[in-house]
């Protein structure tokens, strides 16, 4: 994302916050925060509340969807002439697409009256978690190697 673009920088910080929140509330769906004492830390009891974290996850997912559609529109109309997506960026986008699609499928499945086969549901759950773990690793490697998602067009 262009660093010179002031509103874009603010959006980038918001994006990092939302992604951190999504990862945190996502992992809070597993019974680990109580087991590993995080919920015992004063002020962190809520981390063991599955329903609360699930609802925060939904809200943050809505923010992320809004962010992604915003970036897609702006990149297509304004940024594309000056900035190009790197291969790392394309790979990350692919992972994000999978995470978003499996997330949407899980939300659909949670609706009353919606039937997904148990096997489909299981694969959706595993893919969602697996893609998040891979994206986390890829993002870490990109940060260490100072790789960017967008670079100026030469």
């Amino acid at each position, binding site marked *: 994302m262009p660093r010179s673009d002031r509103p874009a920088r603010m959006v980038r910080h918001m994006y990092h916050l939302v992604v951190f929140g999504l990862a945190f509330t996502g992992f809070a769906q597993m019974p680990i925060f109580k087991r590993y004492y995080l919920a015992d830390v004063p002020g962190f009891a809520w981390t063991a509340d599955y329903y609360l974290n699930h609802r925060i996850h939904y809200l943050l997912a809505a923010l992320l*969807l809004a962010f992604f559609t915003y970036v897609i529109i702006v990149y297509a109309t304004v940024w594309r002439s000056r900035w190009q997506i790197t291969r790392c960026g394309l790979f990350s986008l692919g992972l994000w697409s999978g995470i978003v699609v499996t997330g949407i499928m899980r939300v659909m499945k949670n609706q009353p009256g919606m039937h997904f086969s148990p096997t489909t549901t299981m694969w959706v759950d595993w893919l969602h978690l697996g893609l998040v773990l891979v994206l986390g690793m890829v993002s870490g490697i990109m940060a260490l190697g100072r790789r960017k998602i967008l670079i100026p067009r030469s």
Partner: protein
Amino acid sequence: MSISRRRFLQSLALTGLGSVLPSTAGAVARGEELATLLDIGKCIGCGECVAACREANQHKYPNPQKPFPKMYPDRVKVADWSERQDVDDRLTPYNWLYIQYADVTWQGREYELTIPRRCLHCTNPPCANLCPWGAALKQDNGIVRINDTICLGGSKCKSVCPWHIPERQTGVGLYLQLAPSFAGNGVMYKCDRCYDRINKGEVPACITACPENVQTIGPRSEILAMAHELAEKTNGFIYGETENGGTNTLYVSPVPFEEIDKVIDKGPGRPGFQPVDNAMAPEDKLLRALIFAPAAGVAAGILHTVRALQQDDHKGDDHAKK
């Protein structure tokens, strides 16, 4: 899933009229959920259903490996029912159905009620919706069950269940192959409404064994109509129609369930008859935010684009003036 109409009719002949609605096989073929109606007024507490459940589901019961892996941190307690498999006065991994007793006075009359208790098989089950591993699942025919081959025994299903029905057995299941000391703690067990018998066109064991025809199984819409008819006829009360957004187990009692809830023995493995709001209702509302979000993103993106184009125009004008 195909179910032989003949098999269901055979089951109906075995169990007696009224236990299986004739439309059951057709409803399953159409993908309609099955529900059960429990007429509490008929139950004599003989325990035949409990014994039949144990016999029919024996092959699914846990066979834990001992000694159990050491758990880290120490606060993680093992749940071992393997030495207490005979316990039948509560739900355990080896007892998926038990009889609850309620001595209650209502409108000047004393009632000694005996109530078969097990998983209610919610129509929108939080256990299946919130299991992070896909182990708790809901079948098209309305059965909610736990896949014991992938369950890690984290007990989240029990935490999010309004009645805290599933029960854990340590020392069994997939977690033993992963990181047994650090993640997982066994497998969760509960009533699966004899899904394997249903798959074969048979009727759940507890229904077949009941000498009083306490339970009736059939399409939910018809079972619901029956429940209302029975409640009207007996001046009774219904539990399960709206609780947690609706369950596929409907109880009809001559006594209000608030009164029953006051007198029954409740606690671990012993669910109550408390009022239960739809646990997944907030998620249903949040769906609107998820649907609206992309539209908001598109609107923000268009605004950004328009502003950027206007700035470019201004820059162009400035250059022209120079």
